[in-house]
């Protein structure tokens, strides 16, 4: 077995007392645990009658996160339908926009969770929502970086601009502070004023810096020239314009010139009298020590990384990133020894180790949503080498299957999971076949939806099994019509036979048919099973008799026996039904028909005689049977006589 990457977490089950042995059983998304009586030594202890259900993934039951699952399902299905044969140049913008869609869904959920966390009075709910918000923030951060590095994969020049956007998006507190400062009476004298200015510089938002500095300049007319100089420096900083005509080399040259200008200013001690402006100057030069002095303003090592790149190496290429990333992280984090999981994930992303990113995310998160969707998108961008796992199929499919299996345990999200299984070519169908049979079917409507899924995918085994479950349930509740309609849907002849037997038993017991509306209107479904056909025809016989169409009724009755549609066990009843017809004044059965009836009776009695010698049957029953047979014989003989006479008579 492979080594484990992390130590497994231990979960204590409070209800089970210390030291007891536990038994367990795996479920689709959870595990059932119970206390056993086993004791390592000594007599067996007392048991406990509780079963505990332990679930790893609570997220699917969160009402707000459900939106995430539903929306991302929509995006996922859209992604699968992008045509494969388009050239990759036109596909890239599509992939980027899909990635942005995913991210906007994450953000929408985050905002809603944040609202709930702030407005609720329930502290437990507030903490839970708060936790979920931070997880989603981290997820969006990682996804955004993956989009920048892997999917968009911009060339040098644009790359830095994208990274700048990334950092700015995830450092919202600067704007809040700035708002606070600007709304105060004298912004330039606010205690956070310089913090805001420096933060803006660190983020490369030089326009805002200039606007802020103007306020300060107005307060210090004496230093006006110094501020003017700084303003000039700031305005002259070149930013690469991807859509412009300037090439990268031209930009680089321009940037170096500017960099030299700034350096000269520093060497000249132009800003020596104002420590703040000198600080800004040093930052513009990308001085590491100065940057590291402002760790609290930077907040994270990746902010440090991007700032350093901005002011030292704006033409950084994708392939060069990882040198800077590693060193920046080491420099920034040397007070703490152990980097957090998020840091490792981001570092792995900068190092272009996609598999490591996915692996670390899988370990850190308790829900497969993020890794499944991200991997799927990266796979579509053809960025994952076909990395075959030791088990199962490739990585993308493995993650999607895990995610979808988790969804299937939910009472209504299972419908989303079906689409995910559809897009897993190797094992999706098998998984679906196994899972779909285990969806609990409380209402007929749900059963119909499940059946529709199965029928669309030609899963006939599952259709039959589900219909049988519904039919058995209906039968148990005495809903014979429902049971029959389920067996018709499954084309299950055996079950239809079972239901007909029930009807016939009811008839024998009560003497009348129940559920006439069903039997009278069977239609072509009658042909599904022999017994069902018999039932329909037998009912027809009764109807004909009721309408006094005796000849036709007689013919039908006879054909039921001779064509062997009727089961032998029922022949006695049929023959007894024939009695009133035989006893009629008018001769109904012809001589031939009478002979046939007699033949049937003989067949019946001879087969009965063979089995009748058991002594289990009470005497009265035997008497009744014998009397019936005698009556029949008499009636048949009389009818035969009359028929022969009638047929032999010639009308003159």
């Amino acid at each position, binding site marked *: 077995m492979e080594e484990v990457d992390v130590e497994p977490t231990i979960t204590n089950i409070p209800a089970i007392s210390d030291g007891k042995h536990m038994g367990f059983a795996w479920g689709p998304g959870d595990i059932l645990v119970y206390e056993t009586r086993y004791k390592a030594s000594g007599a067996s202890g007392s048991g406990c009658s509780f079963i505990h259900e332990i679930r790893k993934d609570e997220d699917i039951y969160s*009402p707000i996160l*459900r*939106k995430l699952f*539903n929306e991302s*399902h*929509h995006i996922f299905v859209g992604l699968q339908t992008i045509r494969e044969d388009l050239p990759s140049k036109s596909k890239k913008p599509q992939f980027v926009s899909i990635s942005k869609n995913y991210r906007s869904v994450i953000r929408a959920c985050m905002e809603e969770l944040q609202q709930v966390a702030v407005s609720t009075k329930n502290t437990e709910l507030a903490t839970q929502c708060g936790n979920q918000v931070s997880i989603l923030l981290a997820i969006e951060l990682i996804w955004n970086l993956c989009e920048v590095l892997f999917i968009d994969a911009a060339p040098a020049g644009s790359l830095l601009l994208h990274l700048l956007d990334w950092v700015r998006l995830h450092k919202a507190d600067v704007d809040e502070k700035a708002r606070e400062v600007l709304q105060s009476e004298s912004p330039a004298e606010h205690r956070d004023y310089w913090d805001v200015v420096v933060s803006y510089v660190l983020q490369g938002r030089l326009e805002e810096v200039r606007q802020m500095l103007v306020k300060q300049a107005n307060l210090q007319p004496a230093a006006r020239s110094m501020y003017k100089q700084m303003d000039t420096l700031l305005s002259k900083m070149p930013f690469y314009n991807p859509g412009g005509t300037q090439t990268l080399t031209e930009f680089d040259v321009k940037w170096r010139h500017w960099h030299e200008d700034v350096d000269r200013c520093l060497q000249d001690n132009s800003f020596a009298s104002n420590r703040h402006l000198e600080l800004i100057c040093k930052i513009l030069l990308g001085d590491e020590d100065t940057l590291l002095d402002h760790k609290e303003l930077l907040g994270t090592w990746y902010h440090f990384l991007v700032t350093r790149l901005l002011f030292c190496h704006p033409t950084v290429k994708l392939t060069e990133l990882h040198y800077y990333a590693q060193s920046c992280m080491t420099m920034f984090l040397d007070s703490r020894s152990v980097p957090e999981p998020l840091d490792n994930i981001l570092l792995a992303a900068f190092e272009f180790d996609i598999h490591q990113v996915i692996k670390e995310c899988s370990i850190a998160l308790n829900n497969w949503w993020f890794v499944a969707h991200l991997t799927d998108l990266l796979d579509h961008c053809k960025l994952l080498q076909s990395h075959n796992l030791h088990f199962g199929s490739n990585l993308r499919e493995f993650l999607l299957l895990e995610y979808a299996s988790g969804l299937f345990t939910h*009472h*209504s999200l299972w*419908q*989303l999971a079906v689409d995910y299984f559809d897009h897993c070519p190797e094992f999706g169908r098998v998984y679906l076949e196994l899972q779909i049979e285990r969806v609990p079917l*409380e*209402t*007929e*409507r749900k059963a*119909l*939806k499940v059946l*529709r899924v199965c029928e669309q995918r030609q899963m006939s085994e599952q259709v039959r099994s589900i219909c049988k479950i519904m039919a058995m349930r209906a039968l148990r*509740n*005495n*809903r*014979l*019509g*429902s049971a*029959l*309609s389920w067996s*018709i849907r499954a084309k299950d002849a055996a079950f239809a036979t079972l239901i007909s037997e029930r009807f016939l038993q009811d008839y024998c017991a009560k003497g009348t048919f*129940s*559920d006439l*509306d*069903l039997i009278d*209107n*069977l*239609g*072509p*479904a009658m042909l599904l099973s022999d017994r069902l056909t018999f039932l329909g025809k037998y009912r027809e016989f009764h109807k004909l008799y009721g309408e006094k169409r005796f000849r036709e009724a007689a013919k039908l009755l006879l054909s039921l026996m001779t064509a062997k549609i009727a089961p032998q066990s029922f022949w006695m009843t049929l023959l007894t039904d024939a009695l009133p017809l035989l006893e009629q004044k008018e001769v109904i059965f012809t001589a031939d028909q009478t002979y046939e009836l007699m033949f049937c009776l003989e067949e019946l009695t001879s087969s009965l005689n063979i089995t009748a010698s058991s002594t289990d049957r009470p005497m009265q029953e035997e008497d009744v049977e014998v009397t019936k047979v005698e009556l029949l014989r008499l009636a048949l003989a009389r009818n035969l006589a009359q028929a022969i006479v009638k047929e032999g008579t010639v009308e003159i």
Partner: protein
Amino acid sequence: MNIFFSNSKDNRISIWSIGSNLSTGMEDGFEGDPQLLCEHKHDGDVLDLQFLDQDRIVTASSTGAVTIFRHHQNSQTISVSQLWARAHRYPCDNAPCTGVVCSSPEIVTVGEDGRIVVFRADQEGVVRVIENADSSTIHAVTYLRTTEILTVNSIGQLKLWDFRQQSNSPSQILSLSGDRVPLHCVDRHPNQQHIVATGGQDGMLCVWDVRQGNTPFSLMEAHTAEMWEVHFHPTNPDHLFTCSEDGSLLHWETSSHSDMPSFLQGGRNSSMVSRSAMAPAGGKQPLISAWLSGDSSKGRLETTHMLPSQTLSVNSLDVLGPCLVCGTDGEAIFVNRQVPV
């Protein structure tokens, strides 16, 4: 301010409001999110719901219960006003209640147990029960006249029940000959009480005339999967809406030409014109509604898809005025405020 109710799979009843501002700049009728006003827990899945009056709705639950909820407009809350816990049941199990229809204060419900139960709002007990009304599941119910209801079941039959009669058997049974396709929904024409539309498992839309014969008047292929709901537009009955498991919502619009002189034809009002033109001409000829033109090629029948893209199953819809609301299995509600009727 339009209000609609929704039932969610989390088993809650929610009330939403959609603002009545139809700003001129809106091209896509789906703009503007509905606002959630209030919600309440519900035991079991809500399989059907109907307005009883201005403030109250009745819901049919998968646990077999029938509940009346009251919406308090002032405090924007919902409370349970009345509950019949086991309106539909099996001897040892719960039977889902599948359909409910009201004509205040009377409420009629049907369920998987094949019973029809009549309640009265504000009265504790059951007013009338028709036991064993059907040997299969009754899927939907609608009023035909004040004392008559129509039910559809899972062996493809329409049954007419007359409450004035004391017997427990239907006064009329209509069905399609041939395959017994389960019928899932039924709706009656708002003005002409003999015209009824049904939808079934195979997605076919059938229009029936309950006075004549016991087979449908016309059959139209509508959807590729079960049709869950069919609704005539309440004020403009030339429009019909159907929604289905296949994720589409269709808007049917009929206007019939008939063989009349051309000077009487023309324009969208042709259905109005045809009615008045035919009556004096024939004298004995009955008023033929556009829906009963039999051959759908003779009448003009237009269908349009109402939803922008493929979604999961559309389970339910309702329409009032120019406003259409529907809900899908993807837990999304679509509101269209500019339905062309």
